């Protein structure tokens, strides 16, 4: 295991060391000490490595990640996993706003709660939250899945495209053009797999599915009141 003291060695040195790892690196496990809420920790990674951050992180931890697994042993700041392409981010605590914004792929797991705008403009990522999520989550979500074991705040899935939302608890309100949908066998299968992969505590049958009603896909003046 490679150990890195962020406070002593600095952010530039950390990201330089992580960027230097290639597909066949032997330095597959990293531990980052003293993150102390620093921003841009482990951003732009592109190697199958595991980075364990021993504390809480600031903005954009794991931004644009490819391949790597980033494990935050604390809470994570705004924009964590933004535009992630692949790989995995696990947050032991809570996540701040814009979690997984515009992320294209991979999996983000939050053991606590996630704040507002969770999964905003998501483009293919899967996000699983053990707790609840805040308002305006998955705003303009394009594709991917948002799985919430707790409750969702106001305006879930506002103006969404083809992203799917599974909520176990209550939804305070649905956003424009977001509606409740039937749970079909393929959705139960999907949840079974992702619950197992995420290690969260829930049963697929307990969830309700939401998604786009597709009434706003092409502009019609009679829908103007919905905006």
């Amino acid at each position, binding site marked *: 295991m490679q150990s890195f003291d962020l406070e002593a060695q600095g*952010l*530039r040195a950390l*990201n*330089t060391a992580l*960027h230097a790892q290639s597909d066949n690196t032997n330095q597959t496990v990293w531990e980052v000490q003293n993150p102390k809420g620093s*921003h*841009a920790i482990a*951003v*732009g990674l*592109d190697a199958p490595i595991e980075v364990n951050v021993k504390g809480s992180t*600031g*903005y*954009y931890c794991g*931004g*644009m990640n*490819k391949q790597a697994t980033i494990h935050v042993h604390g809470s994570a700041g*705004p*924009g964590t996993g*933004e*535009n992630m*392409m692949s790989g995995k981010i696990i947050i032991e605590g809570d996540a701040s706003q*814009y979690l997984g*914004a*515009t992320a*294209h792929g991979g999996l983000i797991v939050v053991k606590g709660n996630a704040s507002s*705008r969770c999964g*905003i*403009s998501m*483009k*293919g990522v899967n996000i699983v939250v053990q707790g609840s999520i805040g308002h305006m989550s998955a*705003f*303009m979500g*394009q*594709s991917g899945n948002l799985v919430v074991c707790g409750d969702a705040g106001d305006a879930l899935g506002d*103006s969404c*495209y*083809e992203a799917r939302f599974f909520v176990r608890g209550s939804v305070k309100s649905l956003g424009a053009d977001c509606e409740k949908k039937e749970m079909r066998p393929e959705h139960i299968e999907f949840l079974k797999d992702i619950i197992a992969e995420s290690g969260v505590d829930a049963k697929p049958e307990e969830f309700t599915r939401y998604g786009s009603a597709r009434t706003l*896909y*092409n*502009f019609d*003046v*009679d829908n103007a009141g919905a905006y």
Partner: protein
Amino acid sequence: MNSHDDKGIPHTTPRQSATFSADVNSDIRRAAATGIYDIRGGGAKRKVPSFDDLLFMGASISRYPLEGYREKCDTSVTIGGLHASNPIHLDIPITIAGMSFGALSGPAKEALGRGASMAGTSTTTGDGGMTPEERGHSDKLVYQYLPSRYGMNPDDLRKADAIEIVVGQGAKPGGGGMLLGQKISDRVAGMRNLPKGIDQRSACRHPDWTGPDDLEIKILELREITGWKVPIYVKVAGARPYYDVTLAIKAGADAIVLDGMQGGTAATQDVFIEHVGQPTLAIIRPAVQALQDLGMHRKVQLILSGGIRSGADVAKAMALGADAVAIGTAALIALGDNDPKYEAEYNALGTTSGAYDDWHEGRDPAGITTQDPELMKRFDPIEGGRRLKNYLKVMTLEAQTIARACGKNHLHNLEPEDLVALTMEAAAMAKVPLCGTDWYPGKPGTGY
């Protein structure tokens, strides 16, 4: 029509209303018929104070000129040396502005890359990501980082020669983009992760940051991802230039792109284009003032855009303090957009060459602002690239001609003292004297 009525009283001359003019009335009838506001491409078409209202004084006894074609007049510019280890070196200070693949065809993007590269300057991606033909044909490519993040991925980010964080656009400060279903082809849909044929709205705000403090952290993240190698530009619309430029500099930008209301868009509401934002002439001095107040003029480069058409415009922008300019609409015209040779086809679309602005409908007779495979065939990217290169060279020669006449051996040595204004408005905006006076409105110490 009889000149008198049946009682012998003369008719008055029919009088059209200045308020309810023919074009206003046509807008009202269009709105009443459709129930949808007018969407179009391009920038503000209204007449606004512009660089045409400024003149250079040239040299005589008090200043001496340089010899045309004989004495050197440098046009090079380096952008982004403040924080980036690989700043961009350009032979000419005229860059190609961001225009998306989606709004433009693949061959049109290729032509922009070819022309810019031959002329020794950079081109810019747009809202839709980076295409291989664009990267392949552009020596220096600026990758736009937009609110929608369509097509944004770290692999392309690392291929960029610079990153431009787009906050706003002169045609629509505070507005997002729009690409109607007609132009969402399979390829465009795939690059944007969207279903084919739907109306696509680009967000007006970034999804993961708001405000200057967040922007500073966002710039840090992008620098960390790209190893502090490439410059980071921040593009703002001509809204509140003094404050916006100040905040962008404080957030750590290497360069500012400032876009006036004549700057084009692929598509947005006509009411937005014509009624929100400030003219290019009005925004440059406050922006330069912000740079000077922070001691950053010439360290953080200012790239001005919005209605730049000629070497005279380039020289005037430089004289007022810009380090470079960007062209979009003018580049499209150089490629062949709105060419009168397609007049019959423009007429069939209900318009005329020069006025065609329904770029979002994808039926461009010139084959540039379209994704229609048949229309695209009309456009030859090699010939288009050659035409753009020629145009860029002419603009550069024109700007050099003016600079030499003012006795300057580099375009950057042009200064406000070389200029006078033809109108009070231009004098006030450019802070240069009204012709024949030593005064401009708001001049310190003049009392009014």
